[in-house]
């Protein structure tokens, strides 16, 4: 069921996810489009997430934004955000969740600084911007990096803190799939007044819209965005995985089918979470309502397809 409406306030609104927004030229969403978008969100009972550019909005825009319950996704350095976005590695401190958009190489190089940052932010979401480029050797390195970060997280827990790092702690807390939901639970309104599955689809190809404010939503084959219609993912328990439908399209040409790389990366995280959960529990009771994460013998559920009924 649709629950969220993401509104890109400007052509240069920051990326908060796997995709890049290369637009340099500022161009605000027309005010009447913004008003209509907010109205649409109210009528459809959607939670609105505004995605900001790196400059301050005119007063009239701010008033429309404040006219509805919402959250604000802003580039790092701006005030009054619910989520801050950092593009490229830098050390930050914040009292709201931070999304760190970095390449695998940046993660590998800055692993220790990232571990330190965990104590300086309430939640750190590391988003790798080149998942599709992972090679065999990178998987090995990623596994080691996750193990390294994991022991830092464990130390913080032992010190009585509750750090949150999406790559490691989300899977421990979850009891079911918690994917991005683009096209299923969320849609995006672009500055042109049209709807898209997520901002990535807009920036990649403006013609790829799924409706507009005038005629409403019209997602064709919308069942394919649901977990039940994803043949590999519905057999998977890497519940923290974003199951990025945009990356799916890019790599396998189908929104419901992930690449090998996306699956292996998510399973390395899943397995690292498993180890982390076991380690923390050595120190005392922890998340007693959660079961152990099972040991599995694969990193890509696709390889087990012969066992699916």
């Amino acid at each position, binding site marked *: 069921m649709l629950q969220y409406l993401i509104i890109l306030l400007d052509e240069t609104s920051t990326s908060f996810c796997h995709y890049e927004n290369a637009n340099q030229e500022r161009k605000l969403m027309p005010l009447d489009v913004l008003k209509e978008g907010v109205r649409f969100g109210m009528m459809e009972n959607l939670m609105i997430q505004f995605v900001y550019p790196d400059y301050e909005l005119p007063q009239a825009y701010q008033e429309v934004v404040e006219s509805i319950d919402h959250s604000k996704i802003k580039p790092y350095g701006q005030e009054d955000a619910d989520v801050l976005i950092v593009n490229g590695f830098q050390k930050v401190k914040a009292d709201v969740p931070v999304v760190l958009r970095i390449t695998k190489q940046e993660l590998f190089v800055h692993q220790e600084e990232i571990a330190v940052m965990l104590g300086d932010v309430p939640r750190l979401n590391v988003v790798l911007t080149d998942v599709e480029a992972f090679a065999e050797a990178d998987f090995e390195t990623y596994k080691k990096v996750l193990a390294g970060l994991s022991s830092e997280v464990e130390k913080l827990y032992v010190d009585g803190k509750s750090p949150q790092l999406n790559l490691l702690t989300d899977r421990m807390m979850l009891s079911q799939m918690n994917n991005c939901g683009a096209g299923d639970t969320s849609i995006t309104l672009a500055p042109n007044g049209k709807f898209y599955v997520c901002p990535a689809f807009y920036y990649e190809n403006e013609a790829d819209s799924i409706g507009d404010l005038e005629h409403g939503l019209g997602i064709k*084959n919308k069942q394919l965005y649901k977990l039940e219609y994803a043949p590999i993912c519905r057999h998977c328990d890497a519940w923290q995985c974003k199951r990025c439908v945009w990356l799916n399209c890019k790599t396998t040409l189908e929104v419901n089918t992930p690449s090998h790389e996306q699956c292996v990366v998510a399973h390395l995280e899943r397995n690292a979470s498993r180890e982390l959960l076991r380690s923390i529990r050595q120190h005392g009771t922890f998340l007693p309502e959660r079961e152990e994460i099972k040991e599995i013998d694969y990193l890509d559920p*696709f390889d087990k397809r012969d066992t699916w009924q």
Partner: protein
Amino acid sequence: MNSHELLLLYNSFVHLIMSGLKGLQGEWHEEASKNITFIVTKDCQLACKYCYLVGKNTKERMSWKTAKQAVDYILSCEKDMTEDSVIFDFIGGEPFLEISLIDRICDYLKMRMYELNHHWFNSYRFSFTTNGLNYDSPKVQQFIAKNDHHLSIVITIDGNKLKHNLNRIYKKDGKGSYDDVVKNIPLWLEQFPEFGTKVTISSADIPYIKESVLHLFGLGIHEVNINVVFENVWKEGDDKRFEEQLMQLADAIIDGGFYEDYVCSFYSENIGKPLDLVLENQNWCGAGMMLSIDALGNFYPCTRFAAYSLRSKKPIIIGNVRDGIDKNKLRPFLTLDRTTQSRQECIDCEVASGCAWCQGENYDAADTNTIYQRATAICKMHKARVRANNYYWNKLYRKLELEGMREEFEKSKPKSNDVIC
């Protein structure tokens, strides 16, 4: 000895081995075979009216360099292509227009499989579906003689003269091709008595079905495999007309006693039943398990995904002879099942078994760029087929029971293949 002589020697040697092995060890595994298709040309002498190849042309012919690269790549993938047997399929356009190239590719395949000690060396087949026009040419006949025991050749003939000439007309002058094909049927039947022919039915062909099948039986063809086109070509009332033809054909086959020696794939005891959600959830077609290569050296999950076969979508290219196969692009094909791509109506359908689909047509007709939306243009035709099929078996078994012949028939009844594309 020059390389040509070497090859000749090699061929006679391979032939000896093959002949020696033939019948000894039952090496051929049809059900576990990989299907690899070379699209050697996009040219054809004919311009059949139902031909799905929208982009046929005379320019795109496969070069020897591309073909060789393809063979080298494919044979280097032995650990990923583990199927027991292999069918190398040569299609066009009309494949026999490129018989010299095909001959060279086949020689090279045999030689490399032997040199590499490849597990397909004793278990390969070269397969052709041809319009039959130059079947009797010396080059084609030499090729047949050389590759005896490893060939499957099907000549497409659409039925009686009227029906055949309705669709299968020459590109150059629109004339029907029936006479030029039928003159080659006796030679073909002599060389491949066990093979059947393939008939494709479109809306305009419906009135000729009965006559056509009986005509093909009359030519000595014992197996007539038929499918209706998957494209959305059907008109109001076609299902009724189709059903009527199949009923008349059923009467003719049963009353004329043809069922003892002849098979028409329209009638099958396995069709028209509900399908189990879990146990019968397989995909219908083999796209993705197959591999097609075109003149540019691009790989496709099946020929139907190449540009020249598609009306409204971009081709799905899954790699090329230089870079190999992009395995990510195969994942959707290899995980596709029946229910994920079907509408609820099909999932609940009481007569679902035997209702076929073509992944390429699904993709071409889909509302988005997906192979996960099943096209159901044949729905009412399948339902008509099921009704006539029920009639056929009820009538046949009653007759056999009254004659006390049912048990005997069950033991020795001829089998047919359900042809899907």
